[in-house]
């Protein structure tokens, strides 16, 4: 069946992010002038407004900040997944990203869980970055 969930609509602002994801690389933008790392990948630095950004390979690791279990069909294509989790992950590099946890039963999801990225090729063109429980406890499991 055709993929019927929302898909990214890349622009010059974030095309490098989605192209890297397709290659199963998790890249983040970093300011060449002040070193700030941000997400979503706007063209300019949120701290100093420089447009000189570079892309670097992220650690792919983070910690769950909070989660919710979606129980109503708000989002096209997600009806058959109900209920499903959405997590807000605080990356080791600092930025927060929304995603889903895979392979973790709902009643084991909790803030503070150490997680690592997994790459899911949802279409020929797009790969989404989701997270699973970190295989090696990094000692960063924290509140």
């Amino acid at each position, binding site marked *: 069946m055709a993929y019927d969930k929302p898909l990214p609509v890349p622009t010059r602002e974030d095309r490098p992010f989605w192209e890297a994801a397709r290659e199963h690389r998790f890249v983040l933008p970093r300011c060449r002038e002040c070193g700030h790392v941000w997400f979503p990948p706007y063209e300019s630095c949120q701290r100093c407004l420089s447009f000189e950004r570079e892309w670097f390979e992220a650690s792919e690791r983070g910690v769950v900040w909070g*989660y919710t279990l979606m129980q109503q069909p708000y989002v096209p294509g997600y009806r058959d997944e109900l209920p499903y989790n*959405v997590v807000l992950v605080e990356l080791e590099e600092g930025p927060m990203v929304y995603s889903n946890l895979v392979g973790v039963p709902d009643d084991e999801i909790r803030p503070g869980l150490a997680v690592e990225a997994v790459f899911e090729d949802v279409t020929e063109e797009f790969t989404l970055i989701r997270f699973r429980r970190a295989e090696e406890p990094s000692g960063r499991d924290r509140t």
Partner: protein
Amino acid sequence: MSDRSFAGRTAIVGIATSDFRALYGRDPERTREELATHAIRGALEDAGLEKSRIDGLVTGGTSHYEPIAYRAGLTDVRFVADYPSAGRMCAVALMHAAMAVEHSLANYVVLFNSVCFRSQQNRFGYSSGSTGLMYESVYGMASPGAQYSMAFTRYQHLYGGSEAQLGAFALAFRKHARLNPVAIMQDELTLDDYLAARYIARPLRLFDYCLVNDGAVAYIVTSAERARDLRHKPVLIGGTAERANFREWYVDLEFWADACGSMKRDLLDPLGVTTADIDCLQVYDNFSPSVLWGLEGFGFAPRGEGLDWIQDGRIELGGELPVNTSGGLISEAYLQGWNQHAEAVRQLRGEAGARQVPDCKRVLYWCLSALPNASLLYADD
């Protein structure tokens, strides 16, 4: 600290709200202009003011200010501001009306918000398009309620507290609504009912969410001096405050502690008003945790102890700090904070009937959103 030198120099002199309960049945031909016109007429009657005196117009909820100005026959307008229909704009609109009056840009400003969410079958919660939203929707994330839900799991992780404890908000607001004939929700709500209701975004349930309805609220702002010549005891505008920390994840990672602290310093401290001086709260209950975090942020409840603090009737009429005495957005109607301001005026005039807070002198409003804002109204003594 901001300069609040015009505190008490402007006033709300006329209010009107729709019969939200009567409007709860869908009517596809109902318009926001029609509801707004009703409310404006009601606010003029309440103030005892001739329409010809209106020279300022502040709109919310309509697609444009002109259609309502035609219907209301406003032909001598010197100040117009047009806001989107959003809760975060409620105290902002009030502030701009008060500033216009204070600086003689207009003498009598009529403000309203008018919504037809139910008749027009608005679907809330999903949108896509901007870069930020796209990074949510591809993962099935949608709706402000889900954001508050996510933050509530974080809050529970840090401080504990149960879903049943959170239910104290829904139960209190429903009790109050049952004393308000125009409130939409009139059935008794027990804790068992609350817990048996479906989850929307777990751990938040149906009765943690505001209503989706039609209706309008209007009020008239003028100077305190002019107000004293009108029908009712003036309700003075102490001030308003905003404090935004714009981040992509909508909810504040510290549960709006900085925003509330900042608004308290800007709004209450210059007037020498403390939390102990507030007689009741009429606050933005889009989702019940929002009220919890405001109680902690403004210092009514100790940080992390809000869920314990709200138990045993403390926030109910007759309790230490009645909250949302008309039923709030969860049980009266979702008029995006405008109905909270109307209820504040009724309480400060002593006109709230069965739900009157005795000797009510000061009422605080807040809305914790992407653009947090707050207001203080007080009685003219």
